[in-house]
């Protein structure tokens, strides 16, 4: 705790959360243990899961084909639960760079990347990525050559998107674990590209 033990009144949303949770427990709809379990499950989802998928695709051409064809099935092959939603994997190539946004809210492949970063949910990222993606990417330090086509994916409905970055030169012979270590969250949203250490 950052407050050093000082009393802090609940914020509006904290109060709402506590009231709703206590009411649901009191009515026997959920138990405290179930709530705690769900929070834990959410914490366990991190971008390392997505990085594992990317590293496998870089190492195994047949797996990559499957991933691009049916993202959900390919994730299940690695024991990753993707449940009710459909994963679309979009591949960066020398001709095309992909970037993902949700202009309506904050749709995000949480089962592969965990909780979205604050900026992904910001009004500025959401509105500008669809209309001026090159400017937005350059603010992330990513300059895309004029000859490379940009494909923006607006995640408006039931699909979720993962960018499959290009495997950088200089990573020949690397193990899947080592490859996964250079695949960051931002690379899989499309606002960065992997760099060999």
């Amino acid at each position, binding site marked *: 705790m950052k407050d050093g033990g000082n009393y802090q009144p609940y914020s509006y949303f904290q109060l709402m959360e506590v009231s709703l949770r206590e009411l649901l427990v009191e009515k026997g709809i959920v138990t405290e243990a179930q709530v705690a379990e769900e929070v834990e499950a959410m914490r366990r989802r991190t971008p390392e899961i997505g990085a594992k998928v990317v590293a496998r695709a870089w190492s195994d051409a047949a797996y990559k084909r499957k991933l691009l064809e049916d993202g959900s099935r390919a994730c299940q092959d690695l024991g990753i639960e993707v449940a009710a939603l*459909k994963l679309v994997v979009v591949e960066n190539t020398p001709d095309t760079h992909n970037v993902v946004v949700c202009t309506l809210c904050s749709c995000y492949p949480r089962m592969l990347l965990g909780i979205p970063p604050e900026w992904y949910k910001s009004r500025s990222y959401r509105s500008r990525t669809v209309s001026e993606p090159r400017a937005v990417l350059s603010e992330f330090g990513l300059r895309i050559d004029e000859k490379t086509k940009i494909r*923006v994916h607006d995640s408006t409905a*039931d699909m979720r998107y993962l960018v499959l970055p290009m495997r950088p030169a200089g990573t020949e012979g690397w193990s899947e674990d080592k490859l996964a270590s250079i695949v960051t969250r931002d690379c899989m949203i499309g606002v960065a590209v992997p760099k060999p250490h």
Partner: protein
Amino acid sequence: MKIESDPLVPVEQRYQPGDRVKVRKAYPLGHIRTPFYIRGHSGVIERVCGAFGNPEELAQQRSGDPKQPLYRVRFLQKEVWPDYKGSAEDVLEVEIFQHWLE
């Protein structure tokens, strides 16, 4: 004789990848998953995603049946934003439900 349509049978898929479509320019109230900026614009079907519960119905606590085909539609950035800065080949892909296409 009037044939009642079965709500459990998804609405028939009308478009195929490559078909040219136009997003309806309409402004109904409610929970709409078709962004304002794309309404009235023309694009091409990139892929068929499958049939999903209609979000406008689901938001009203209704069943969402019959399910509506969902497409990914590809638009040219230069056609969506007249002063777009970037390659003429830059594209924007948006998921749109069939009842928003014409």
